C-alpha cells in the first residue's frame, strides 16, 4: 500500500514538473500582458523537434551523454527563444494597443498555424526521440522504482524554477517585469523599456518550454506535431489552478495536477484522467477564480 503510494508520488512528480515548466510560460506572459499565449504549447512541440534534430546531428560528434544532453537542452532552449521572440514580434507586438480579445484570437491562430506547419514539415507520423542518457534504476530491490531520468526531470525542473524565482525576485530585470505586470503604462512613464521587458518575458517562458520539451522527450520518447495540444491544455489548467499570473502558483499547480492524475489513474481508472484535470479547472473557476496563489483584481472599467 505504502509502496504504491510512494510510487505514485514519484510518477506524479515527474509528470507534474513538466506541466509546471510549461505552465510557467503561460503564467509569465499572462502576468505581463494579461492574455493567454496559446501558441506556447506549440513552442513546446517545436522545442521537442528542435532537440530531436539537434541530437541527431550532434550525436556523432559528442560521445559523452551528459555533455550531449546539456548541449541538446541548451540548443532547444535557444531555438524556442528564437521562435517565441519571432511570434511576439510578428503577431503580438502590432496588437499591443488592440483589445485583448484580438490578441487572444491571434494567439489561437498562431497555435493552429504552428500545428499544421509542423505536420507539413515533420509529417504526422510520430518520431522516436533519442534516449540521450542511458536509463538505469536508482532504487534497486526496494520494490520502489525511481530511475535517473525521472530524477533528472524533477531536479532540472526544480532548478529552473529556483533560477526563475531568483530572477523575478532579486534582479533588476525581475523588478522591471513585476512593474510592467503591475501597470504597463505607468511602468513606461517611469522609464522602463516595456517592449524589451516583454521580450525578456517571452525569452524566459520559451526557454522553459524548450527545456521542458527535452525532459518530456526523455521520459516519453514519442514526439509528433500535435504533441503540444494536450500538454498545453494541462499546463494551462495547472496555471489557472495555481492562480494565473503567479509563478509560485504555476509551479505548485503543475505538480498537484501531475499527482492528481497519477492517483486518479491508480485508484480510480485511466478513463477519468482528463476528466479530473478539467474537473479541477471547472471547480477552481467556480469557487476560486483567482486560483490558489492568485490575488483577485477587480476588472478596471
Amino acid at each position: 500500500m505504502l509502496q504504491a503510494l510512494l510510487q505514485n508520488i514519484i510518477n506524479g512528480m515527474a509528470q507534474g514538473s513538466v506541466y509546471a515548466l510549461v505552465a510557467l510560460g503561460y503564467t509569465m506572459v499572462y502576468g505581463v500582458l494579461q492574455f493567454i499565449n496559446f501558441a506556447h504549447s506549440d513552442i513546446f512541440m517545436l522545442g521537442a523537434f528542435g532537440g530531436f534534430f539537434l541530437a541527431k546531428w550532434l550525436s556523432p560528434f559528442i560521445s559523452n551523454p551528459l555533455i550531449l544532453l546539456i548541449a541538446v537542452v541548451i540548443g532547444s532552449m535557444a531555438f524556442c527563444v528564437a521562435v517565441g521572440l519571432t511570434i511576439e514580434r510578428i503577431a503580438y507586438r502590432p496588437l499591443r494597443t488592440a483589445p485583448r480579445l484580438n490578441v487572444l484570437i491571434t494567439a489561437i491562430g498562431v497555435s493552429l498555424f504552428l500545428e499544421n506547419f509542423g505536420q507539413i514539415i515533420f509529417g504526422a507520423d510520430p518520431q522516436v526521440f533519442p534516449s540521450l542518457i542511458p536509463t538505469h534504476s536508482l532504487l534497486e530491490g526496494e520494490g520502489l522504482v525511481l530511475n535517473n531520468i525521472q530524477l533528472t526531470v524533477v531536479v532540472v525542473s526544480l532548478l529552473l524554477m529556483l533560477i526563475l524565482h531568483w530572477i523575478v525576485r532579486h534582479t533588476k530585470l525581475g523588478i522591471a517585469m513585476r512593474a510592467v505586470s503591475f501597470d504597463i503604462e505607468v511602468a513606461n512613464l517611469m522609464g522602463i523599456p516595456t517592449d524589451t521587458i516583454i521580450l525578456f518575458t517571452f525569452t524566459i517562458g520559451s526557454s522553459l518550454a524548450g527545456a521542458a520539451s527535452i525532459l518530456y522527450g526523455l521520459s516519453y520518447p514519442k514526439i509528433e506535431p500535435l504533441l503540444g495540444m494536450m500538454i498545453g491544455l494541462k499546463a494551462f489548467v495547472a496555471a489557472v489552478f495555481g492562480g494565473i499570473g503567479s509563478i509560485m502558483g504555476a509551479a505548485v499547480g503543475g505538480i498537484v495536477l501531475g499527482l492528481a492524475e497519477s492517483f486518479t489513474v491508480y485508484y480510480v481508472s485511466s478513463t477519468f484522467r482528463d476528466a479530473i484535470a478539467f474537473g479541477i479547472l471547472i471547480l477552481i473557476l467556480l469557487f476560486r477564480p483567482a486560483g490558489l496563489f492568485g490575488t483577485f483584481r477587480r476588472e478596471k472599467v
Partner: protein
Amino acid sequence: MTTLSAKTLFRLGLVFGIFITLFNTSCVKKEGATSGASSNSALGNEILIGEYGSMTGSESTFGVSTHKGILMALDEVNKAGGVNGKKLVLKSYDDQGQASEAVTIITKLISQDKVSLILGEVASSRSIAAGAIAQQYKIPMVSPSSTNPKVTQVGDYIFRVCFIDPFQGSVMARFAINNLKLKRAAVFRDIKADYSVGLANFFVEEYKKMGGEIVADVSYASGDMDFKSQLTSIKGKSPDVLFIPGYYTEVGLVARQARELGLKAVLLGGDGWDSEKLTEIGGDAVVGGYFSNHYSHEDQSPVVQNFVAQFKSRYGEIPSGLAAQGYDAAMVAVGAMKRASELSPKAFREAMAQTKNFQGVTGMITINEERNAVKPAVVLKVVDRQKFSYITTINP
C-alpha cells in the same frame, strides 16, 4: 426605418438563397451517386478499384504497407491481361488515420470516382465507419486487416480476408497456456480502440476457459503518454504475462515504462505490434515479447517465399504482414471479379461471398457466411531490435 427593413429583407433573402443552393447541390450529388452506383464501373476498358488508408498519421506504416501490397497485386493482374481483358485502375486516398476522414473519402470514392469495389481499412474503427457508407451505396468493400467482429456485421457488402479478434485473442491465450505454460495474466487494453477491446475480451474468455487466471484487467486510451500508474497497479499483482493488444506507438511506450517500473512479465500482443517502429520506440523493452500475426516472411512455403522475393525486388524491403494482407485482399477481390457473372458491384459481391480455399500469401482463405476469412494465425517473437521471428502456426 424603411431602409432598415429593406436591409433585413435583403439579408434574409441572401441566407435563404444560400440554403437553397446548398440543399440543391447536395440533392444533385446524392442522385448522381445512386444512379452511378448501379450503372458505374466497367464502362470502357477499365475497372476502377478504390482504396482508403492511413498514409499519414500515427498509424501511417499500416496504410503505407497495405498500399504497397495492393499496388503490387494489381500490377501483377494487369500484366497478366487484367480481368476479362479490362485493366484495373486503383484510386487511393489518405484518411490520415481518422474515422471522420475515412467516411468523407469513401463517399468521394463512390460518388465522384464511381469505383466498383473498395479495399480498406486496417483499423477496425475506420472500417466500421466507412463500411456503413459502402453498404449504403451497395459497393463491396474488402478489408485487408480489420479484425474486429463488428466490421463485417455492418452489412452483406462488407468482407475481410483476415481472421477476427476472437481468434487472435484466443490464439494468444492458447499460446500463453500451451506453449509458454504461464497461468497468471494481466490485460492492458486500449479502451478507445474497438480492436483492442475485442482482442482483450476474447483473450480473457479463452484464458479463463483454459484454466488461467486474469489477475488484472486495466485500461488506457490511445494517445496517452504516461502509463506508470496503471503499470504500478499491475506490478502489484505480479502477473506472468502481460497482454497488451494495442497499436505499436503506445505498446512501445507501455513496454518501456513497464520495464522501468521493474515489471518482468512476458509481453504478448496482437497484429497491432507489427511495425519497425515498435522496437524503435520500445527499444530493448519489447524484446522477448510475442504477438500473433497474419503471416511470417520466414514461413518456408513457396507461395510466401515467392511473394517475399517479388516484394523485395520491387520495394527493396521485406513485406510486413499488412503488406501481405493488402496483397491478398486485392487478389481475393480480383479472383471474385473474374468469377463474377457480370462486371457490376452486385455480381462482385456474390462472387466474393463464394470464395473458397483461395491460396493466399497469408494462408488458405475461405469466406464464411459472416463474410469473415477462416484461416490460420502465426505467432512471432521479437528477437532483437531488428528481427521478429516465426515461432508457430495456430490453426482455427
